[in-house]
């Protein structure tokens, strides 16, 4: 057979592509379950970390079992609110924050008349953690942009909907040693005890270059050498928490 003929080349290429495609499709189907499980565990672990319930993970025999049992024990409730502070139907855990983040960006850009309508279309998840002593903590997911890609995190608030109880941040691909430091515990711990409101006005928490002033409840130290990531975290907190504003105000008046 002539190996250099067009027919041979075409047939060879077709068979090769079909064989490879079949092999890859099979692998993707077989591995889909454990992959999705990993993503779910990762999300649950982040939620637990924001209320410091991830301690003991290093001693745990099975990561999955530890995360599942801790999640079932501490996360007692979850619900969805819209930008007007009204509860909506649905499973909060399944909300895709990438999609909501895109909606939040259009809300911010929209003019005043539009804002109201667009805000009502947001579907924002809230997770509720019950401490051993019965105190409730409210966990809010946040999402934004760093220097090289998306950054995200979870913030837990005390039931005054003002004081930050804990935080955890992660990123897709910030610079190691610089922007990537936001994923470190030491960075997230700075947020503990900070406040997102002054009286009834939402102010968020900012990352300050050159160090936050002592006793400022709305500022933490930025990361040296990671200015754009730091600004990204500030923007992320302001933009995402602002969408929960109506919900916070509603809850504050109830207390």
């Amino acid at each position, binding site marked *: 057979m002539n190996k250099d003929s067009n027919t041979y080349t075409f047939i*060879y290429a077709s068979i090769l592509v079909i064989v*490879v495609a079949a092999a*890859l499709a099979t*692998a993707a189907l077989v*591995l889909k379950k454990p*992959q999705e499980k990993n993503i779910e*565990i990762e999300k649950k672990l982040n939620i637990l970390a924001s209320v410091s319930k991830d301690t003991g993970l290093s001693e745990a025999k099975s990561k999955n079992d530890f995360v599942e049992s801790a999640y079932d024990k501490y996360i007692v409730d979850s619900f969805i609110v819209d930008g007007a502070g009204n509860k909506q139907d649905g499973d909060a855990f399944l909300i895709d924050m990438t999609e909501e983040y895109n909606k939040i960006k259009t809300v911010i850009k929209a003019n005043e008349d539009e804002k109201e309508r667009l805000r009502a279309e947001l579907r924002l998840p809230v997770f509720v953690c019950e401490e051993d002593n019965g105190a409730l903590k409210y966990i809010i997911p946040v999402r934004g942009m760093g220097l090289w890609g998306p950054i995200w995190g979870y913030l837990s608030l005390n039931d005054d909907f003002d004081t930050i109880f804990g935080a955890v941040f992660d990123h897709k691909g910030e610079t190691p040693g610089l922007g990537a430091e936001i994923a470190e515990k030491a960075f997230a711990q700075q947020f503990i005890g900070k406040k997102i409101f002054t009286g009834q006005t939402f102010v968020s928490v900012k990352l300050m270059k050159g160090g936050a002033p002592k006793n400022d409840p709305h500022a933490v130290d930025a990361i040296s050498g990671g200015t754009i990531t730091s600004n990204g975290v500030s923007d992320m907190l302001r933009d995402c928490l602002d969408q929960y504003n109506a919900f916070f105000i509603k809850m504050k008046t109830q207390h």
Partner: protein
Amino acid sequence: MEEKEPMFSAKILKLFTNPINKDNPITVLMLGICSALAVTVKLEPAMVMALSVTIVTGFSSCILSSIRNTIPNRIRIIVQLVVVAALVILVDQILRAFAYDVSKQLSVFVGLIITNCIIMGRIEAFALGNRPWPSLIDGLGNGAGYGLILIVVAFFRELFGSGTLFGLQVIPESWYIGNGGFYENNGLFILPPMALIVVGLIIWIQRSFNKQLIEK
């Protein structure tokens, strides 16, 4: 007819050991430097990367060698790419399923194994002219040579850059300035340029022991 060779003759073993030292893909052939800079901040991802590349070079060489007489010459490179890409995607999927944390750390670099010059280099230079078994050994040997350098570089970068090995604290906490000591991690080790410097030092040491590598 080719003469039948034993499975582990001296010649075959040389195919495996040469790339680890005197034909090392990184320090002698200067291939695959880019990923060596990117994934060597910590030991664990470096080891997984080393293993992944070894598997891909070994099996792609073996597969392509076994079909080498059927490949139409005009689409030779495309056929090679398809096989390599398929193997890389498989490795990526498996890591995502069973080593999720590491696959997150390696992120895009697993996909970029496709572009690792070592793989295409060995296929073109060796696998297309040799039988599957020697090709497999040659591929595994080159992957191992690459991996060895990766692990050595990662060892120094993690030790001096983060004070840890495999994520475990090695340098005593009490040494750190923050705890009243005298020591501080060297931030330069975390950044890519330091990987280049470490690779350079390894090349220097290797050549001072192995004089025949020095170009006249």
